[in-house]
């Protein structure tokens, strides 16, 4: 009996595990290091989850619970409080849990470890290190899971989707947002969400500005912006600026993509190591949960084919992208089912960008998109069927 180990029990890991069991791929073990499976949606108290992957609209915790229930019902062995601490071979892992320290060997491994927000220190924001500096992840857990009052007046760094979610969470935690600060000219979310969370409450959004210093001794007293303005506050929430939780991918020696900062993958989640797959926000930080789940389900088909018949295509074609695009998912194309979509990210706003996908000077697709930083940009993937396996890398660029 073959075994697949899934590392990470969030939407992607659970969706892939469920799909693997339904396709009779053998034993499926999900290793989830938190005490409950479900991933980040467990503490996202807003609705809108599940539309594309579960056919219903749910709040975060209900969505997480549903994925866990479906996986359990399909016979997935979900092990919580199980932390993968390292690799003992290309497809076996060292695991620590209350049940003991063990090695778990598998025929295939799926990395679905998600992503996190870059903290203040990684963003090199100077100043003192007082209490009151958080990321949205920590904020959500404090407010939603622990019902803690985190502060009274907050500055939110960032103005992407999650930043507005942070403003709402702060409000629920009894904390007023005095300003949102973004390095881009304006916010990067949907107009209704921006109005709901900030506009109607009079929360100003300062664009083309950065927080360059935090002040305060034991507790935050204020922040300094790059134009010299100071904002008095007792809480600073650093939002967005996602980075994949890629330690295990790096330690496995997988080829990494400088753009996504996750392991380099093809459209079905194959990494540079035979038998190791990667899906979810580990490879496209940070898409919505349903995108993560759908991509992971597609990977499940490839994982099943691999454990059953050793299917592992050689020499995929690389996909690269040119500035201002910062990354593309996937970064490789295997000669089989084309991806439903290519996901892109941009560093700059380009209101009416003419995008072209080309290989060896031959255009495979052209289209127009509005490019906004921190917003998912999708282009169709059907053109992948006309990619020449020997034609060199595919380039996505403005043209």
């Amino acid at each position, binding site marked *: 009996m073959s075994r697949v180990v899934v590392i990470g029990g969030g939407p992607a890991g659970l969706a892939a595990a469920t799909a693997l069991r339904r396709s009779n791929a053998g034993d499926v073990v999900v290793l989830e290091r938190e005490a409950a499976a479900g991933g980040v949606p467990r503490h996202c108290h807003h609705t809108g989850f599940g539309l594309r992957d579960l056919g219903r609209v749910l709040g975060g915790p209900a969505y997480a619970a549903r994925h866990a229930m479906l996986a359990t019902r399909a016979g997935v062995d979900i092990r919580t409080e199980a932390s993968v601490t390292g690799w003992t071979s290309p497809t076996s892992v060292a695991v620590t849990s209350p049940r003991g320290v063990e090695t778990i060997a598998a025929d295939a491994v799926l990395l679905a470890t998600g992503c996190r927000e870059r*903290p203040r220190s990684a963003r090199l924001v*100077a100043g003192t290190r007082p209490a009151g500096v958080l990321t949205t992840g920590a904020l959500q857990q404090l407010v939603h899971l622990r019902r803690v009052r985190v502060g009274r007046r907050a500055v939110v760094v960032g103005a992407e989707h999650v930043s507005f979610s942070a403003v709402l969470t702060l409000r629920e935690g009894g904390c007023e947002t005095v300003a949102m600060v973004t390095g881009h000219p304006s916010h990067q979310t949907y107009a209704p969400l921006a109005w709901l969370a900030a506009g109607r409450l009079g929360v100003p959004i300062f664009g083309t500005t950065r927080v360059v210093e935090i002040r305060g001794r034991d507790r935050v007293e204020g922040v300094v912006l790059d134009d010299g303005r100071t904002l008095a506050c007792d809480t600073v929430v650093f939002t967005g600026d996602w980075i994949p939780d890629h330690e295990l991918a790096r330690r496995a020696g997988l080829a990494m993509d400088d753009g996504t900062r996750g392991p380099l993958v093809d459209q079905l989640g194959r990494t540079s190591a035979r038998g190791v797959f990667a899906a979810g926000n580990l490879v496209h930080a940070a898409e919505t949960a349903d995108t993560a789940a759908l991509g992971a389900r597609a990977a499940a088909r490839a994982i099943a084919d691999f454990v059953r018949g050793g299917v592992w295509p050689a020499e995929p074609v690389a996909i690269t992208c040119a500035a201002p695009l910062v990354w593309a998912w996937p970064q490789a194309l295997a000669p089989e089912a084309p991806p439903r979509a290519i996901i892109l990210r941009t560093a700059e706003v380009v209101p009416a960008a003419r995008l072209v996908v080309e290989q060896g000077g031959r255009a495979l697709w052209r289209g127009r998109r509005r490019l906004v930083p921190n917003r998912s940009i999708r282009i169709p993937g059907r053109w992948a069927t006309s990619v020449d396996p020997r034609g060199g890398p595919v380039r996505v660029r403005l043209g």
Partner: protein
Amino acid sequence: MRRGHALLLEHGPRLGIPIERTGAVLVAWTAEQAAALPAIAARAAENGYGATRPVSLDELGHLEPHLGPGATGALAIPDEHIICPFTTPLAFATEAVANGVALRLQTRVGGVAPIDGGHRLGTTAGPIDARWVVNAAGLHSDTIDRLFGHERFTVTPRRGELIVFDKLARPLIGRTILPVPTATTKGVLVAPTTFGNVILGPTADDVPDRGATGTTAAGLAALLSTGARILPALVREEVTATYVGLRAATEHSDYRLFVDPDRRYVCAGGIRSTGLTASMAIAEHVGESLRDAGLPLVRRPVFHHIRMPPIGEADCRPHADAARVAADPEYGRIVCHCERVTRGEIRDALRTAIPPRSLDALRRRTRAGLGRCQGFYCLAEVVGLLAAGSGRSIEALLGSEP
């Protein structure tokens, strides 16, 4: 320093202080620096350390393959060690408390008055009478020295900013990479840490304010620029933490060690960069000074040994210790994932002789919260455990109590 180094190597392991013999290499980047290397080796030999060894550029390339281009020479220092700066003072304090020392925290000394047979110290926790006083007040050692009527030195804090890089950067260096010291500064180094990170720094500039523990944009930028020269791949890795240390520098280059036998007062002030290495030797010296000044020192019949819990990367951490986890499943529940810290270790920290009363204190005792995510995953749970175990509320621990 030599004596302190030897004492730390002798006692560190039994105290559980993480210490690793990584070795170091002094790298010259100009012809002038390369020319200074033989004199440095000679001075080390004069000071009793003869094991330095010139290293050819070829060998340097093998020792440190990720070093940036442009090195002009190098000197190997095989016996350089790295040590945990958090565990060391905690170990000293824990051993002291285990052997009868009363540790009074949050007790600021504001005045000294002579009384019959000694001193009355005015503190924020009420008066404390003492027959003998040792001033080890660091950044405020000059203030305390003045309370005893002296005007011998002034502390001007010398700020050092440091950048701690992600553990994933660890494979980029094999040993500490030192700069050739100049007349003004010891220079910026790149070193592994006992937690498995890579540290870059420190800067060195005088600041007037003894509370100026903030990093600066200019300081961080200067470090990154230097780091990019020494180890280009390093600055492409994520930064885990940045911080500042203030050295208790004075107008003198030596420590301010004074003995006042008549007044039964010893000053051990102005201890700067080399202080940790020298700490046990300074203590030994102070002990001898006190004895020579008339303090009767009687060896205790029973000495209680302590051992700090293993938090160094070279130690066998509880999460990886199958026998420990089997005996107590709380060592199998990892709470801080980035640093692999278990519930059992946090529980143990709360039960020590000097329990943590703040998040920072818990961080330094266990590593919880010091990792790359800086609390994104674990802050809520860690502060919850600390609240439950310390009797303080989560809001108080987060500093959000009004």
